[in-house]
C-alpha cells in the first residue's frame, strides 16, 4: 500500500514537472539528440500540411486543387526514401547529415517510406513545432548549405505560419546572402497575401543588389500576381539602378497575357536608357504574339530610333519567329549598312528555304559589294544542299 502510494506520488510529480517545463525543452531535446550524432545521418519525420505529396525527386503542391505546382530539387533518385506511387502524401521526412557534430546537409522528402539503411539514427516522429524550431534555428545561426537547406522543410510543415519567420530571416543582414536568398525564394512561394508586401519591403530596404535581385524574382513568382504592379513601379522609378530596373523588366516580360504588351510599349516610350530599352525589346520578343512581333518589325523600319535598338529589334524578331516573308520584304527598305548586315545575319539564322533564297538573291544581285560578301559568307555556313552549286556558279560565271 505504501509502495503503491509512493508510485502514484512519483507519477504525479513527473506529470507536474512535465507541465512546468518550458515549451522549448522538446525542441532543444531534438537539437541535443541530433547533435549527439557526430558523423552520419539523422532521420526524423513530422506532419506535412495538406495538399502536398511527394515523389522521387520532388514535391507537388496544390494537387488536390488541381493546380499541380511541382517542385524538383534533385536530379536523381532519392537515396533515403522509397516511393510506391507518384503522389505520396505526408509526412515530411528530413535527413540531416552530420559532420563533426554539426549539420552539413539537409535533405527533405514528403511521403514514401524510409529505405532501410545501416548506421542511420532515426529519432522518429517529432512535433511540427519542435521540428520547425530546430530547422529555423539552423537557418538563423549556421552557415553553409545546411542553413540554406533548413528553410524548405519549414515551408512544408503542417499548421505553422512560415511567412513571418521567412521574412525575418530574409531581412536579417547578419545572415549569409545565400540563406537570405533561400528565405526570399520560399517566401515568394507562400500563398499568404502578406508575402507580397514583405517582398516589396525587402526590395525597398535592400542594400545589396543580390538581395534586391532575389526580391524582384520573388515578386514575379508570387501566385497572386500582385507582385507585378510593384515590379512596374520599380521599373519606372528612375531612382533605381538601370541594372535592377532591367531585371524587373525582364520578369515583367516573362508573364504573358493581360495588358503586358501595352505596358511594355508604353514603358519603352518613357525610358531614356538604352540598356532598359534593350531589355524592353527583349521582353516584347518573349511575348511571341503577332502584335509583339509587329511592334518589333515596326521598330526595325523606324529610322527615328537609334540603329542599335533597331538592330536588336530585328535580331529578336528573327529569333522570335517573325514570318520570314515579312523579314524578306523589309530587306529592300534597309538603306543603312548596319541594318543590312543585321538582316543578312538574321536570314542566316533562319532555317526556312526562303531565308536561303534571300541570301542567294543578295549574294547575286545586291548592288552593295559588302552586302554580297556578307551574304556569301553566311551561305558558306549554311547546311542547305543547294548552296554549293550556287557558290560554284557564282565563282565561275
Amino acid at each position, binding site marked *: 500500500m505504501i509502495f503503491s502510494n509512493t508510485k502514484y506520488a512519483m507519477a504525479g510529480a513527473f506529470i507536474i514537472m512535465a507541465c512546468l517545463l518550458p515549451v522549448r525543452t522538446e525542441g532543444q531535446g531534438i537539437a541535443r539528440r541530433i547533435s549527439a550524432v557526430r558523423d552520419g545521418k539523422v532521420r526524423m519525420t513530422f506532419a506535412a500540411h495538406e495538399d502536398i505529396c511527394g515523389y522521387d525527386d520532388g514535391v507537388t503542391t496544390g494537387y488536390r486543387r488541381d493546380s499541380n505546382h511541382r517542385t524538383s530539387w534533385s536530379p536523381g533518385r532519392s537515396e533515403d526514401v522509397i516511393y510506391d506511387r507518384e503522389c505520396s502524401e505526408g509526412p515530411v521526412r528530413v535527413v540531416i547529415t552530420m559532420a563533426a557534430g554539426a549539420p552539413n546537409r539537409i535533405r527533405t522528402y514528403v511521403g514514401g517510406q524510409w529505405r532501410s539503411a545501416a548506421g542511420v539514427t532515426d529519432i522518429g516522429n517529432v512535433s511540427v513545432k519542435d521540428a520547425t524550431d530546430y530547422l529555423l534555428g539552423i537557418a538563423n545561426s549556421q552557415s553553409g548549405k545546411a542553413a540554406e537547406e533548413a528553410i524548405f522543410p519549414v515551408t512544408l510543415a503542417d499548421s505553422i505560419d512560415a511567412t513571418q519567420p521567412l521574412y525575418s530571416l530574409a531581412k536579417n543582414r547578419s545572415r549569409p546572402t545565400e540563406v537570405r536568398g533561400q528565405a526570399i525564394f520560399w517566401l515568394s512561394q507562400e500563398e499568404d497575401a502578406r508575402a507580397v508586401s514583405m517582398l516589396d519591403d525587402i526590395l525597398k530596404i535592400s542594400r545589396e543588389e543580390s538581395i534586391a535581385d532575389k526580391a524582384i524574382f520573388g515578386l514575379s513568382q508570387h501566385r497572386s500576381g500582385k507582385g507585378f504592379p510593384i515590379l512596374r513601379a520599380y521599373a519606372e522609378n528612375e531612382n533605381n539602378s538601370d541594372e535592377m530596373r532591367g531585371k524587373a523588366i525582364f520578369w515583367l516580360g516573362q508573364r504573358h497575357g493581360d495588358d503586358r504588351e501595352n505596358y511594355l510599349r508604353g514603358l519603352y516610350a518613357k525610358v531614356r536608357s538604352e540598356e532598359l530599352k534593350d531589355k524592353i525589346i527583349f521582353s516584347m520578343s518573349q511575348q511571341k504574339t503577332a502584335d509583339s512581333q509587329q511592334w518589333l518589325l515596326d521598330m526595325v523600319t523606324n529610322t527615328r530610333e537609334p540603329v542599335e535598338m533597331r538592330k536588336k529589334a530585328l535580331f529578336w524578331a528573327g529569333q522570335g519567329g517573325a514570318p520570314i516573308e515579312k523579314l524578306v520584304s523589309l530587306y529592300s527598305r534597309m538603306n543603312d549598312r548596319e541594318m543590312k548586315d543585321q538582316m543578312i545575319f538574321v536570314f542566316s539564322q533562319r532555317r526556312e528555304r526562303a531565308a536561303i533564297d534571300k541570301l542567294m538573291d543578295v549574294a547575286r544581285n545586291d548592288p552593295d559589294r559588302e552586302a*554580297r560578301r556578307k551574304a*556569301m*559568307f553566311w551561305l*558558306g*555556313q549554311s547546311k542547305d544542299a543547294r*548552296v*554549293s552549286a550556287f*557558290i*560554284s556558279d557564282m565563282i*565561275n560565271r
Partner: protein
Amino acid sequence: MIATRSAAVAAAVVMVACAQATPVEGQPIARRVAAVRDGKVRMTFAARRDICGYGNSISRGGSHRMNWTSDQSSDVEYDDDCSRGPVRLVLTMDGGRIIKLRTYVGGSWRPAVGGVTDLGAVSVKEAADYLVLLAATDPGAVGREAIMPATLADSVRIWPQLFRIARNEDRPRETRKQAIFWLGQAAGDVIAPDRNPGKETDDEEVKKQAVFALSQRRNGEAVPALIQVARNNRYPEVRKTALFWLGQSADPRAISLFEEILSR
C-alpha cells in the same frame, strides 16, 4: 627523355648536314649552332625582294601583311615600317637544344644582352638547307617554325624538300600542315604574282569571298570544287584564293595540284 631526344635530333641535324651535297656551306651552321649550349644564336641571310618587315610582322608585295608573333620584337628594332631584308633568324638554345626559332625581316639587331652568339651573315643556300633540315628532323615546334623563314630566302628552290615533308606521315601533323600551307602560298604566287594589290574589281572581291564560302562546306565537296576553281577560273586572284584555302585543307589532292603548278 626530351633532352636526350632533342640532343639526338641535334646530332642528326649535324650528321645529315655533313652528308649534304654541299657540305662546305651546309655544315658550319649546324655545327656552330650545336656548339652553343644556352642563350640565343643570331644569323642573317638574304631575303626575297618582295618582302619587308616591321616589328612582329612581315609584308609581301606592299599590302599582304602576315603576323606570326603576338608580342613586340625583343631582338630587332625598326625605324621604318617596311624595312627590306635581310632575314634575321634567332634560335634560342637550352642545354644544347633549340627550343625556339624566331624570324624577322629587315631592321637592325638590338644590342645583345649576354648569351648571344652572332653567326653573322650566312649564305642563302646554307641557311635554307639548314632550316629545311630542321623542318625534316625536329620533332616539335622548332621544325614547324623553320619552314616559314626558309620560304623567305632569296633565289632558292625549297619546294621539292617541302613536298617530301608534306607527304611524310612520320613528321608531326603541324609541321606537315605548315609545309602544305607554304606550298599553297608558293603555288598561288605562280598563278598570280602580286600585280595590282588592292585593285580587284567588286566582282573579283565577291568571288574571292565565294571561294572562302566554298572552303567552309563540310560535306567533302569543298576540295574538288576548289581545285576546279584553282585550275579554271578566269581571274588569277580568285584562283590564288582557291589555292590558299586548299593550302589549309591538308588534302593530298591539293598537294598534288601544288606540285603540278610549282613544277611548270
